[in-house]
C-alpha cells in the first residue's frame, strides 16, 4: 500500500499508562494531590507553492506535565524524559516549587479543586488517516495551486494542510482517568496578485482559518477547487479596485471576519484570568470587571454568545479540560447581557464567580490557563440578501488580514481582504484595503441584524496566543453574517 497519512510509531502503550499510575502511587504520600497529563501529538504540515513542493514536515511531540498540590499551592514539572528518573526529576522540581511558593501564592487551593473524573472523548471523522495517501494530498494541494493561479498576475499561490493526531491522557492520585483523542484538519489557500506597484492577497476565509475536527474528507476537490478559483479571481479584481472610503456607514461583516471580531472583542475580555490580572504583563487586562456579570449590556438584544466545546466537528471541542472539569455549553452573553466569564476552576474559586471548563494548555510543556474553546454567536432571522437590500449606505467586508486591539480589549482596528460597497440596497463596487475601528461595547450595541441559521459558518484557528510562558491554543468560532450600524471605516495609503 502507498504511504498514507497515518504515522504513529509509539502510541501510548498500556504498560506506559501502568507505569504512570505506579509513579503516581509512589509519590502520593509526598503531596496533597498530584496529576499527570501525558500528551502525544503527531503533526503533518504539507504545503505547495505555485505547484511545487514547499513544506513537507512531520513532527512528534511527546511528554508529560506533572501537576503537584502541596500546602495549598499548585506547581508544574514538565519533561520529555518519560523514564522513572525523568519523571522523578520533574516531580521533585514541582514539589520543591510548591513549597517555595508557600505563603506567596495568589490563593490557597485544595484537593476539592481537582475532583475525580473518568471519561473518554474522540473527534468525529468520516475517513481515517490510513485510507488517504500522501501522494493524494500532495496532488490535491498542487491542484489547488493551479486553480488559484487564474491569471499571469498571480505571483504567488499557496496551499497548505495541517493534520494533527493528538492523544491526551489525564491521571491523578485521586483516581482521575481521562482519555481524549483528537483528529484535527487545518487548511489554508491564498493567492497574491501583483501588477506594477500594486499587490493584493486574497485567502480562502483568512489565514489558516478553515480548521475543524474531522478526517481527510475535508480535502474535497469539488468544493475547494471552485472556491480557490474564486479566491484567485478576487485577488486579481482587487488590483483595480477602488480604495476604501473614509466615513461612517453600516458595516456588514461576513462570518469569516466575525470569527475574529468575536475572538478579540468577546472571547479575550471575558477570560477570568485576564479579569484577575494574571495576563496584565503580557496579553493584557480586561475592561470587564467582576461586578459587570449579570449587569453589563455588552451588546444589542440580538447578541447571544455561548461557550460550547460540545459541538461535533468544531475545532476546539472536547469533553474535559486539563483540570478534569467536564465541558458543558454555557451562555456567556444572552440577549446582549453579560452572564458568565471564561474561567476554569482555579479562576472561579479566586473570583467567586461561575465559569466554564476551559483550563487548558497548548501541550505537555505548559501549565493550563483560562482559554477560549468554541465561542459561537447565535443566528438571527435576517438573510444576507435582505440585510443588503435594507441598507442604503454600507459596506460588506470579508476575511481578516489585520487585527489589533488594546490591552483592555476596548479600542480595536481590524482590516479585511475584500469588500463591496452597498449602495441603495445593492452590492456595487469592489473595494480594496477595507478597515474598520471601534470600541467593544459601543460596537456590539450597534449590532442590528444577524443572518439565519442556514447562513452560519464555522471556522477555527490553531494560533490563539497568550500566557507567560506563552502558548498557543486551538479555538473555534461560528457566526452568521452580521450588520452593524454607523461604523468608522477607512482605507489604505501612507
Amino acid at each position: 500500500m502507498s504511504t498514507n497519512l497515518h504515522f504513529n510509531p509509539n502510541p501510548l502503550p498500556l504498560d506506559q499508562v501502568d507505569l504512570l499510575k505506579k509513579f503516581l502511587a509512589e509519590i502520593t504520600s509526598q503531596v496533597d494531590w498530584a496529576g499527570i497529563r501525558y500528551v502525544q501529538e503527531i503533526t503533518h504540515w504539507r504545503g505547495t507553492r505555485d505547484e511545487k513542493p514547499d513544506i513537507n514536515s512531520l513532527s512528534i511531540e511527546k511528554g508529560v506535565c506533572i501537576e503537584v498540590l502541596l500546602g495549598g499551592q499548585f506547581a508544574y514539572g514538565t519533561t520529555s524524559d518519560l523514564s522513572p528518573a525523568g519523571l522523578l526529576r520533574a516531580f521533585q522540581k514541582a514539589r520543591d516549587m510548591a513549597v517555595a511558593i508557600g505563603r506567596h501564592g495568589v490563593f490557597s487551593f485544595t484537593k476539592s479543586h481537582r475532583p475525580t473524573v473518568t471519561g473518554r472523548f474522540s473527534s468525529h471523522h468520516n475517513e481515517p488517516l490510513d485510507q488517504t495517501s500522501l501522494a493524494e494530498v500532495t496532488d490535491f494541494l498542487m491542484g489547488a495551486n493551479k486553480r488559484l493561479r487564474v491569471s499571469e498576475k498571480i505571483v504567488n499561490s499557496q496551499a497548505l494542510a495541517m493534520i494533527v493526531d493528538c492523544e491526551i491522557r489525564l491521571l491523578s492520585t485521586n483516581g482521575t482517568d481521562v482519555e481524549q483523542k483528537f483528529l484535527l484538519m487545518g487548511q489554508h489557500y491564498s493567492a497574491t496578485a501583483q501588477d506594477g506597484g500594486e499587490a493584493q492577497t486574497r485567502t480562502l476565509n483568512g489565514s489558516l482559518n478553515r480548521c475543524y475536527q474531522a478526517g481527510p474528507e475535508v480535502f474535497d476537490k469539488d468544493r475547494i477547487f471552485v472556491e480557490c478559483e474564486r479566491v484567485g479571481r478576487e485577488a486579481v479584481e482587487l488590483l483595480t479596485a477602488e480604495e476604501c472610503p473614509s466615513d461612517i456607514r453600516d458595516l456588514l461583516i461576513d462570518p469569516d471576519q466575525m470569527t475574529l471580531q468575536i475572538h478579540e472583542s468577546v472571547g479575550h475580555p471575558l477570560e477570568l484570568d485576564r479579569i484577575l490580572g494574571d495576563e496584565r504583563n503580557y496579553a493584557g487586562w480586561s475592561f470587564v470587571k467582576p461586578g459587570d456579570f449579570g449587569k453589563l449590556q455588552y451588546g444589542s438584544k440580538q447578541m447571544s454568545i455561548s461557550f460550547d466545546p460540545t459541538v461535533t466537528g468544531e475545532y476546539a471541542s472536547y469533553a474535559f479540560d486539563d483540570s478534569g472539569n467536564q465541558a458543558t455549553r454555557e451562555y456567556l452573553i444572552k440577549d446582549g447581557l453579560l452572564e458568565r466569564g471564561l474561567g476554569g476552576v482555579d479562576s472561579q474559586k479566586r473570583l467567586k464567580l461561575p465559569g466554564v471548563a476551559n483550563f487548558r494548555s497548548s501541550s505537555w510543556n505548559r501549565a493550563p490557563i483560562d482559554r477560549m474553546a468554541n465561542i459561537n454567536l447565535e443566528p438571527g432571522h435576517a438573510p444576507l440578501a435582505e440585510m443588503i437590500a435594507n441598507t442604503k449606505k454600507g459596506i460588506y467586508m470579508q476575511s481578516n488580514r489585520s487585527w489589533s486591539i488594546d490591552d483592555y480589549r476596548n479600542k480595536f482596528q481590524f482590516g479585511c481582504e475584500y469588500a463591496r460597497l452597498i449602495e441603495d440596497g445593492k452590492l456595487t463596487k469592489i473595494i480594496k484595503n477595507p478597515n474598520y475601528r471601534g470600541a467593544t461595547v459601543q460596537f456590539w450595541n450597534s449590532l442590528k441584524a444577524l443572518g439565519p441559521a442556514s447562513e452560519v459558518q464555522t471556522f477555527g484557528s490553531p494560533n490563539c496566543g497568550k500566557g507567560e510562558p506563552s502558548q498557543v491554543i486551538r479555538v473555534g468560532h461560528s457566526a452568521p453574517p452580521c450588520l452593524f450600524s454607523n461604523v468608522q471605516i477607512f482605507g489604505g495609503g501612507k
Partner: protein
Amino acid sequence: MSTPKTNPFCETANGHFSQLCEDFFSLLKEGEDATCNLQSEQQDYLRFNGSKVRQSTFVQQHDLQIQFQSRNRRLDVNAQLSGHRDEDLLLLKQLLARAREEVQVLPEDPYLVPMSNSGESHRDHVGRPPEARELVDYLAECTRDTEFTGLYATGPMVRGNRNSRGQKHWFSSDSFFLDYSLYTLNSERENKAVKACYSSNQWQQSEFLQDLNEAKLQLKMLQKKSKVLAPGIYRAFLTPSALDELVQMLSWGALSLGSYKRGQCALAKLYEGKEQLSSKVHLSENFDLGMGPQFTPLGELTPMQLPLIQGGKLTTLLSNLRSAKEYGTESNGADLGENPRSLELKPGTLTRAETLKKLETGVYLSNLHYANWSDLQNARITGMTRYACFWVDKGEIVAPIKDMRFDESLFRLLGAHLEELTAESRIIPSTGTYQIRQLGGKKLPGLLASEFRFTL
C-alpha cells in the same frame, strides 16, 4: 566571585546530540543526507500577579529537527527527545524509515539546497542565573505595594547544528530575564502601569534594585489625572522599547527576499527606491551582540555584520540558500523565514538630557502594544500606546495620557518625520517563550518624531 562554568545541562545535551547525530548519520545510505538541529532548554518559569506567585513551571525539553534529503526530495521531521540514547535512536530509526517511504512519493523539489559542510563553530555564554525558588521570597517582599506582575524565566538554552557532511555548530546560553510591570491607580481610579525588564547571566541585586526603583518613580508620576488626547497628529518621542514594537514588524517578511518576490514585503517600495527613509537610518544584523547563534538551521553562518538599510536606503534583503536558488541570487545567510535575528539600529546624537526639551510639546511613548500592518504596501502600522506614556508640555512631563490607537507609516515615521535618534541605545533581549524560550534580541536607540498619528 568565581567565573561561572558551562551548565551541566548544556554539556550533557552536547554529548547526547553529538552521539545521536553520529549514530544517525551512520544509518544513511548513499544519496541520502541529513541536517540535525537541536533546541534544548531546562527552564524555570515563575509567574507573578500582584507580588504573589500565580504559577510556576519547570520545563525540560530537547526538540530535534532533521532535514532529510534523498532523490532531490526533502522531508523535515521533528521529534522530542528523551535524552536516552537507545530510546532516541529507536525513534530516529522509525523516522528515517518513514522519511525514506515519503521521498518515494513526494515530488521533486526544484529549490532543494544540497547539503555541504559550512565548517564548525562553538560558543558558550556561561552564567549563573538564580533558580526560581531562590527568588520567590525576595521578589514578593521587595515589590510589595507595587502590584508587581510578570515572568521570571531562567536556565540554560542550547542550539546545535550538525549535518552528514561534517558540519558542526553549537551555541549555548545560561541566563535569565525578569519581564515585569508595576501598577497603581491614578487620581481618577484608573489603572496605570510601568514596564521593565531585567536580564543578565548573573543576578546583581544592585542592578535590579536600580531598575525597580526607577520603575517605582515612574509609577508615582502616573498617579496624576490622565490627559485625554483627541485623535490627530502629535510630536512624539519613542523610547527604545516603544520603537521595538514597530521594528518587530520587520520580522513579518518586511526584509525578506522571498516575501518581496511574492508581493508580500512591506518595504518593497523602499527597496525599489520609490520611498526613502531619513539618511539617519542605518539598520544592520549584528551578531556581535551575542544574543543568538550566528548559524542558521541550514548551517550557514550569517556575516557578523550585515548592513540592510544604509543612509535610509534598503540596500539588502535577507535571503537564504533556498530563496537564492529560486530567484537566482546569492544567499546572505538568512534563516528559513528570512527574518532578522539580531537587529541594530545605529544611534544618533540626541542626549538623554535633551530629549524632553527637544520634544517640547508632544507625547512621550514608553511602550507600544499589539502592532499589525494596517496597509502592508505602505508600511503602515496600527497599534496602541501602553504603560507609562506621558503628555509633555514645554519640555516638562505634565501628565500621563489615556491610551490611544496609532496608525502610522514607517515611511513617514522613519522618513521625513524622523528628527533625531538618541545617542544612547538599549539592548532589548527577546522575551518570547512560545514552545521554547527564544534567543536573540535587538539594540535600538530612542526616536524623536515631528509627527505621529493617533486615530482613536
